[in-house]
């Protein structure tokens, strides 16, 4: 009987006792963790550096907690189907493996579909990095008397007084009182947020060009929203113009230097518009009010970009189908962080979908049989997919909840 020499390489374990593939995947995941740590850590730091309560809330930036929760469920479910696929292929059940992979693939596609829908809503409201008007606070504003009616948005006490003027005192009925309290709290918080934004605005350089651009952009969006009303108002505007001209000519007969007063002109215009505006919907009337303030030359002073922003925000909250660009303090910081984090996450999801698509094709061709290669491939792809899920587990509460 011959004896072979002992092959010691079979018994000496060099390095970490994992396969090369698993080692490579874990090293890759560790680098990805640091990548997302940079993004998420930056978001946390930037958010905590803003005054308390000034950071945009989910409803300010059209974030739906429900959609975020659905996306969380979709990813968790897909993580579950991946481990079930791995378990199935370990047992040699190719058919179930293919089914689970297909479900995972479609969950990934659904996640990206929901994300695309959310992004579309953001773009429609002008919520994009560097495109949000969050520096509309003219330093000169701080010197203006804040007891003027126009600035009641920025003082919680005045905002509360305005609310009570419009809605009356707290109703005795408990159900109505709850709704009343909730609305009043919302008005107070909103005013406080703007007040804090004004007070901290020294860190945000005011650019008059941005302010003018914002006013023009809002005007264009309003024109789009109330185009039919503006068409209906054209005859009234023409009639008002003729009456003003006639009145001025009448005045000039007595005194060539006389001119019609601003108040009188406003009176004539409003009288002509009144019947058409009375027949219009509330949305059209309120949008037209803002449009008039943006375009009229008969106001005591031009409306500031900040006031436009505040009005636009109130209109956007009241009429959800209105695509205005509201004033959102720290909006650019928020949107940069949001799109960076969710965008890179979505790219990672897309990468996972591509790999699962390839595995699914293999499976549909009957090549996904139990062998060490396929089992390991599914395990490693699953590791990547679970990591994507873990990232979303942290992103969802940070962006949508707290």
């Amino acid at each position, binding site marked *: 009987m011959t004896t072979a020499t002992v*092959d010691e*390489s*079979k018994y000496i374990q060099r390095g*970490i*006792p*994992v*396969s*090369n*593939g*698993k080692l490579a995947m*874990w090293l890759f995941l*560790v680098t990805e*963790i*640091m990548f997302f*740590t*940079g993004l998420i*850590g*930056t978001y*946390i*730091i*930037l958010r*905590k*550096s803003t*005054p308390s309560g000034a950071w945009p*809330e989910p*409803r300010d930036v059209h974030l739906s*907690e429900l959609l975020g*929760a659905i996306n969380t*469920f979709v990813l*968790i*479910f897909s*993580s*579950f189907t*991946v*481990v*079930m696929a791995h*378990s199935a292929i*370990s047992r040699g059940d190719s058919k179930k493996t293919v089914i689970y992979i297909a479900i995972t693939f479609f969950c990934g596609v659904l996640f990206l579909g929901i994300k695309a829908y959310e992004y579309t809503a953001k773009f429609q409201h002008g919520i994009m990095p560097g495109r949000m008007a969050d520096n509309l606070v003219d330093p000169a504003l*701080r010197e203006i008397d804040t007891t003027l009616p126009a600035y009641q948005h920025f003082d919680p006490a005045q905002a509360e007084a305005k609310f009570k003027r419009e809605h009356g005192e707290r109703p005795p009925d408990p159900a109505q009182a709850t709704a009343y*309290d909730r609305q009043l*709290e919302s008005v107070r*918080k909103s005013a406080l947020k703007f007040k804090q934004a004004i*007070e*901290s605005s*020294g860190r945000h350089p005011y650019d008059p060009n941005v302010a003018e651009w914002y006013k023009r952009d809002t005007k264009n969006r309003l024109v789009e929203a109330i185009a039919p009303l503006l068409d209906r108002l054209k005859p009234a505007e023409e009639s008002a113009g003729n009456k003003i001209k006639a009145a001025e000519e009448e005045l000039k007969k007595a005194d060539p230097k006389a001119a019609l007063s601003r108040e009188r002109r406003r009176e004539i215009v409003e009288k002509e518009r009144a019947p058409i505006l009375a027949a219009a919907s509330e949305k059209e009337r309120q949008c037209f009010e803002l449009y008039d303030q943006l375009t009229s030359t008969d106001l005591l002073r031009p409306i500031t970009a900040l006031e436009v922003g505040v009005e636009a925000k109130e209109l956007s909250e009241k009429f959800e189908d209105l695509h205005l660009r509201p004033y959102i303090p720290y909006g650019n910081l928020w949107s940069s962080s949001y799109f960076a984090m969710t965008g890179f996450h979505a790219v990672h999801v897309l990468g996972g979908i591509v790999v699962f698509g390839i595995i699914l094709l293999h499976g549909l061709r009957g090549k996904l049989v139990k062998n*060490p*290669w396929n*089992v*390991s491939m599914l*395990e490693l792809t699953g*590791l990547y997919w*679970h*990591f994507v*899920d873990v990232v979303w*587990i*942290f992103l*969802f*509460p940070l962006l949508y*909840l*707290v």
Partner: protein
Amino acid sequence: MTDAHAPSATHDAAHDAHAHEGHISDKTFMKVFGGLLVCTAMSYGTNRFFGSESIIHTPNAVVNFLLIGMIACFKAFLVMYFFMHLKIDWRKVFVFLIPICILAPMVIIVLWPDIVLAWRILPETSGTP
């Protein structure tokens, strides 16, 4: 005859496929999945109670953050321990994960004093920096 010293593609792939010191059953995976769903619902519910639009008018940002943060960490633990097989592989891969558990919070800790706690003089409101 194959060379026993030559690295084999199937050897590496077989290494983990057969080296199961432990095994996680499908039933466990289903329980973990159920647990994750419950935790997600709890996060959502916590935000409805303590978030800025609290349905019972008791918003508390700190409590909200702590509770939701703890739930998120627990969910991440469940996914990593069971789905990512750290229950089996922890002793093999902890050498990668421990350093990043230290480095990741450090990114935030290092920047915190300079950006979050920096003195800011707010005109008209604050007399102290």
